């Protein structure tokens, strides 16, 4: 008891000497953990807190994608090399979705070129390619948001000094919780593996709901 009292006195002394931010934060953290189960899996990309602007000008966090399978990539719209092939692969997947899954998958394109790919540019790109906002979202973020997401997706990139970028061609499949369940590295004539994983994911999800 005396020991406890002494510790409390020391604690109070420390509180008056130091900004008490950490202790308050600790308590909040503790209470939150008691009150609610973890809403996000530890491995969910939706733990990233970056903010993005869509092609329609909405400001969103990544967890706006939660609750559905997501087929996603990173690139830039003025790219002449590999990006059109990546988007073509994603379009191929969309075209070959089983009828029951139509409209239940989100296709997400994150630009690595924030300076050029403004939301308006992204919208024009989507329109030019006939990528309907019902299924496709294009995202514009700041440099740090882009670099952090690219790190999480394992997409290395760098400016090539000529207005373009060297970057890895990666299409990732996220489950409704935002976990990476499959990645296609490099472009394909037809992305059958990716499509198969996506269909399997939807089947799993359906089973879980039932």
């Amino acid at each position: 008891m005396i020991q406890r009292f002494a510790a409390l006195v020391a604690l109070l002394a420390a509180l008056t000497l130091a900004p008490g931010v950490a202790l308050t934060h600790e308590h909040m953290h503790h209470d939150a953990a008691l009150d609610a189960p973890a809403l996000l899996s530890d491995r969910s990309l939706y733990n990233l807190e970056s903010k993005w602007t869509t092609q329609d000008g909405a400001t969103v966090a990544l967890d706006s994608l939660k609750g559905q399978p997501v087929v996603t990539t990173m690139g830039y719209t003025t790219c002449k090399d590999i990006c059109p092939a990546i988007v073509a692969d994603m379009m191929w997947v969309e075209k070959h979705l089983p009828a029951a899954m139509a409209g239940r998958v989100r296709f997400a394109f994150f630009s690595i070129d924030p300076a050029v790919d403004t939301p308006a540019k992204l919208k024009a790109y989507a329109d030019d390619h006939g990528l309907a906002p019902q299924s496709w979202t294009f995202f514009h973020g700041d440099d740090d948001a882009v670099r952090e997401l690219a790190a999480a997706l394992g997409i290395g990139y760098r400016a090539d000094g000529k207005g373009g970028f060297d970057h890895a061609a990666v299409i990732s499949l996220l489950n409704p919780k935002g976990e990476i369940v499959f990645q296609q590295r490099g472009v394909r004539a037809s992305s059958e593996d990716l499509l198969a994983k996506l269909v399997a994911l939807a089947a799993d999800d359906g089973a879980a709901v039932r």
Partner: protein
Amino acid sequence: MRGGRILSALVALAASALAVSGAYASEAMATIPAGLYHPFQRVKAPTASGDPVAPPQPIASFRLDVEPVTNGEFLAFVAAHPEWRRSKVKRVFADERYLRRWSGDLELGQGDPLDAPATNVSWFAAEAYCKARGLKLPTTEQWEYALAGTAPDREAVRTRSFAWMAQPNDARPAPVGQGLANSFGVRDMVGLVWEWTYDFDAYATTAESRDPNGKDSAAFCGGAAAGVADPSDYPAFMRYAMRASLKADYTTDNLGFRCAGGA
């Protein structure tokens, strides 16, 4: 039991008070002067008609930690930012080896000195640490430029690198600050631990991302595999290969970091 919890709260509080008062924010930084950076990667592969070497690139002045971030500094950071403690870190941000040699959330391991470089830290954790100081991880360009921006340093880097790579890793990295400062006043960039950079995977070259049209020898969408400026620079190959092998959530025993900021 209760006393133990109060005690650990006190320890956390003391550590965070240290952090808030700037103990980890006062790490010495060197100002790296603007200059010309010689890229290791070529823009174009040599051809029969010529051997185009990438022109030197201007690089702006920036600040860089003189030494790698230490255990002590990282301890103060995790005390002030509980989400980065070993028991709380989210798996998406750091693999299961994160801070694995520490004996607890706020205790270093046996024989792990405060002034040894912080290792078993992921890219996300390193970047979060730098961000808390108003800094970032150095870009690969900045890091490489600071390593050997001047000619006399280049030879020293090679010699030091070969000596380091010839030795098995120590069980634990030695304390920082024992290496000789280079002409920019930074030390321990070679010979102690490998280090994260902001764009560590930007130079990865993989066959599967090769330009599908084959119209140049590009890996990635561009010219990343066109070759290198100095094929004899084996330590540089090692550095780029090591960084390309990383993923942002990886943590290993001999991978640390330092922070950079604007001039």
